[in-house]
């Protein structure tokens, strides 16, 4: 078995795979149905996966329903992304004490237990690739992020049931897997309930060898292709990306920014659920006992203080902050990291309390390219 090979395993095989990961000491995380959503939790076997659950997503709307069928991955994405495993919501970067003018500084060690992810979507793999560029591809990489990424085993699962908020096809990140996985599964429901497996790495090959697998037939491969094609055809919405970065760059004074600002609550939900948003606060905290900690924690450009400079914030209006978020995600991300910031997962659309749709906003500006707020009666 090598990277690039394929195979088929059954439900029992998936169960054994998860058990094997746990047995090897991985903190094994997968999708679980909890609190009315598909979130991430520790899994011990296939029974922990959300069988029969399906999601219904729309702008400002997310719900899961139990249909009683055996399908394990019949949903798109939940609010949680795998970003939080590698770029943690809060992290202590160093801890220090000062006594008698002497400084004693320590960097907390990385946790020993490696992580295994079961159920990463192709769009999420694309998002991790984007984050790799941002956090580990610069002159000064985040080594803790890089170490976590290197030590993690990923079992991806292709999408069969995109939701109405998905647009990975527009961003060329799915619904089929591209790269960044050790094993990739496609759930096949026509005929026996089984999983088509693609091997992505030596580690993946080695794991597969421990399971009972059968050779993939042409029928299996066709069935897998049908799933992917079906997902592509059933994509919920689309984003026209042709010339998008330049379009947004020349429409910074477009009246749409003020218009969307009348709806936007500046709550930052979109940045929280987005799998590529990376803004962080770096703050020093003093404890009562004199210990100093430098903590890095998730921040959002929708926070009015995000751009604070002595005197006041650079972006005091919702309009300017929404513009910052959208133009960064779809335009200036290219200048900074030579890739788009958006992978088309649609989370920002579903989890916006007022249902603002990034694809709709971009389309509205495209439709009236060049419109100016100041264009007036002359």
């Amino acid at each position, binding site marked *: 078995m090598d990277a690039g090979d394929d195979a088929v395993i059954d439900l029992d095989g998936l169960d054994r795979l998860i058990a094997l990961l746990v047995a090897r000491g991985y903190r094994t995380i997968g999708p679980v149905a909890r609190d009315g959503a598909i979130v991430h939790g520790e899994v011990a076997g296939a029974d922990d996966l959300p069988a029969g659950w399906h999601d219904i997503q729309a702008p400002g709307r997310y719900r899961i329903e139990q249909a009683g069928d055996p399908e394990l991955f019949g949903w798109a994405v939940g609010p949680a992304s795998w970003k939080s495993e590698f770029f943690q919501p809060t992290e202590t970067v160093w801890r220090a004490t000062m006594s008698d003018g*002497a400084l004693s500084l320590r960097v907390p060690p990385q946790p020993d237990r490696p992580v295994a992810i079961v159920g990463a979507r192709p769009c999420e793999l694309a998002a991790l690739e984007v984050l790799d560029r941002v956090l580990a591809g610069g002159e000064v990489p985040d080594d803790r992020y890089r170490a976590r990424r290197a030590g993690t085993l990923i079992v991806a699962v292709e999408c069969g049931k995109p939701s109405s908020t998905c647009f990975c096809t527009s961003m060329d990140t799915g619904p089929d897997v591209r790269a960044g996985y050790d094993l990739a599964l496609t759930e096949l429901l026509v005929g026996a309930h089984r999983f088509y497996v693609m091997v992505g790495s030596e580690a993946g090959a080695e794991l597969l060898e421990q399971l009972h697998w059968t050779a993939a037939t042409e029928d299996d491969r066709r069935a897998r292709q049908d799933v992917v094609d079906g997902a592509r055809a059933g994509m919920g919405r689309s984003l026209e990306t042709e010339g998008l970065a330049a379009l947004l760059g020349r429409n910074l004074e477009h009246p749409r920014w003020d218009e969307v600002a009348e709806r936007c609550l500046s709550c930052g939900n979109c940045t929280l659920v987005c799998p590529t948003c990376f803004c*962080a606060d770096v703050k020093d905290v003093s404890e009562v006992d004199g210990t100093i900690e430098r903590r890095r924690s998730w921040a959002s450009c929708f926070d009015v203080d995000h751009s604070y*400079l002595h005197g006041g914030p650079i972006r*005091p209006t919702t309009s300017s902050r929404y513009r910052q978020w959208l133009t960064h995600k779809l335009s200036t991300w290219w200048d*900074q990291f030579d890739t788009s910031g958006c992978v088309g997962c649609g989370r920002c659309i579903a989890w916006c309390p007022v249902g603002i749709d990034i694809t709709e906003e971009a389309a509205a500006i495209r439709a009236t390219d060049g419109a100016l707020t100041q264009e007036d009666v002359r």
Partner: protein
Amino acid sequence: MLAEATAGSWAVAPLVPMPYVVVGRREEAADVVTLSLEPTQGAVPVFRHGQFNMVTSFGRGEVAVSMSSAPGAPGAVEHSIRRVGSVTAALCDAPVGSLVGIRGPFGTSWGIDEVEDGADVVVMAGGIGLAPLRGAVRDLVARQGAGRGRVFVLAGARSPDQILFHDDLMAWEQAGAHVGISVDVAAPGWTGLVGVVTALLPGAPFEVPGSLALLCGPEIMMRFGGRALVDRGVDAGRVRVSLERNMQCGIGLCGHCQLGPLLVCRDGPIVRYGGLADALFMERNR
């Protein structure tokens, strides 16, 4: 595990500061204090004119401050810090012998080594903006003569008591640089010029062809100054400005310093005016 990063290397954890001792301090005008700092281990890393360090006041926080001394100056590195918040206040109060943290050097530089032979350099500084230029001007003035162009320093301040580095300004004039100083508002006894700093330009007879212009100060000053220099004929691509935004990591990871396509800590703070800063300056956030 104790951080093993050596000065200037970030192999272990990029947010770990190196301890430096305050070996000297000088109260400047206008709520500004210049700290002289030496690392507790090793030497000051090599830096380039205009770069900045992230300076930690242990227990308070960290701020971005440009070096105000010239690279390669023996011994300590200098930072001139203006008291504008709790971290800068703590740094301004730091006594000799106390420890601060330093991460850096970061950012782009003034690029004074790109000055062509014989080309003049115009330096326009407003208020604290003279601090990030000080090391560059020192070295440029020292290089004058022997086929090199002249240095023209135009420094503006709000009022006479806010003029920084007065001794340096006089020394540079003594050394043959053209020095123009003006204030927005005079005080009794002030016999110098009163007016906006850009009004000093007509009185600065620099040779336009090949000239380099370096601007640092409030954004409004750099905006008007940049335009005035281009109107005078200076190549917009050879006008450089120093941008300032909220900086927390200094290494392009935290996203706070974004300005259009730039991460100011990584792609700046010094950027060219023509075709970049001139457009970014026009960004309005109402």
